């Protein structure tokens, strides 16, 4: 059986974060969460966990989603990125510029996100857990 796909979900809204966690966890994903870009970056740089896909909100304190995407694309180029925004066009456009693989506008349908994850990981070649 294939190893579960590993997700890192980042949002400063804890309700959204726990909803996402519950949903993807119940769908068989290995899920970690972070409350902002800085927490996510620390988790990534600790290197105790590997991830296949990053799902991130854009407007957040400290390191914004756009900042996180820019850093991740440079330091972890294999990691697929789905950006979500509820703040109009600007952050979304910046996320595309920072080369997010998918940009979705809130409110987002969780099943749709899952479709995007599958499509992204099918196209690419996600690393599998050893």
């Amino acid at each position: 059986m294939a190893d579960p796909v590993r997700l890192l979900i980042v949002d400063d809204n804890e309700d959204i974060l726990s909803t996402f966690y519950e949903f993807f966890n119940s769908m068989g994903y290995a899920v970690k969460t972070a409350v902002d870009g800085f927490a996510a970056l620390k988790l990534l740089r600790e290197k105790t966990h590997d991830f296949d896909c990053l799902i991130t909100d854009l407007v957040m304190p400290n390191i914004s989603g756009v900042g996180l995407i820019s850093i991740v694309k440079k330091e972890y180029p294999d990691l697929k990125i789905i950006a979500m925004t509820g703040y109009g066009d600007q952050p979304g456009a910046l996320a595309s510029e920072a080369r997010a693989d998918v940009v979705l506008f809130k409110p987002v349908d969780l099943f749709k996100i899952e479709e995007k994850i599958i499509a992204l990981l099918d196209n690419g070649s996600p690393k599998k857990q050893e």
Partner: protein
Amino acid sequence: MTTTPLIGVSKSLLKIKELINHVANTCLNVLITGETGVGKEVVAQNLYEESPRTAHSFVKINCAALPETLLESELYGYEKGAFTGAHKKRPGKFQAAHKGVLFLDEIGDMPLSLQSKMLHVLQSGEFSPLGSDQDFKTDVWVIAATNHDLEQRIKQKQFREDLFYRLNIIKIDIPPLRERKEDIPALVEYYFRLYTSEYPNNQGSKPDPDTMERLCNYPWPGNVRQLQNCIKKQMVLNSWEKIFDEMPSEENHGIVSRTPPGPQSNPGLDNNVHPDFANDQTSLISQFVDLSTSSDKLFQDISLKKIKKKAADRVEKEVITFVLDKVGWNRSRAAKILKVSYKTLLYKMTEFELDPPSK
């Protein structure tokens, strides 16, 4: 440039240090927010110090201190003949900061027309000096700072939303000193040591535990800069009582209404003016013209217009210094109290060469 370290032990300050440590090598646009005097420039300098750009310059520009056209030519430079008075080509701050850091202080006060141009430069990485049809590639790390609530200014249509999001890639919010009191003892210690080495002959006593408690419980409307100023004064006056007397009241905003502004009420000012106004006319005139010269020369020197300007400037300078001192060099508050725009206050401060106490 000597970088002031970030002093403190509070959770918020340690988090800022950790954030700087994590993002300084990314050179992504940074927006630093916080009240006047919290140390926004210090954070910017620390970012620069930890970045891979230290071999190049850290260039600072205050977007509120210059009129629009001057700010534009300062930022982008100009070609010879670009406008009347442009006798020779002059490079701008973008050129000076190439491969280094451009610190845009008071970005919230940048005029809207210049915000569009700034946005264009940030998007394209190119700019052209005034009067030039050539585009220059620029590689600057932009760190911007403001004490305004930019989201509020966006709602008021005074700040461009697209520029805000482009700058706000990394956001560092520095809380006011009153929200991180645990940093105060370390800051007191730091500035004591700094001024002791700077002024070895002035030995003000350090605060005893009661005084330290008072310092920690004071709300510091002018934040770290005000605290720094107090320590500097203590080095000279060596009287905590005097220092506390001169501070805005601990109930905060009350002080200005209770103490009418005027040279008499501030012992720190040049107090030879006030009695002179009341008493000795000759000595008053002597402050503005040299009475010891011959009559011919004297009559040549006396011009009502010039004297009026000198006298007004002098009084204005004193009143501004007085108010700034009372509010811990919080310029926004001082402008409100003086009932002038923030910009006007900054012009006057530049004109009168009024600088906040140096670090």
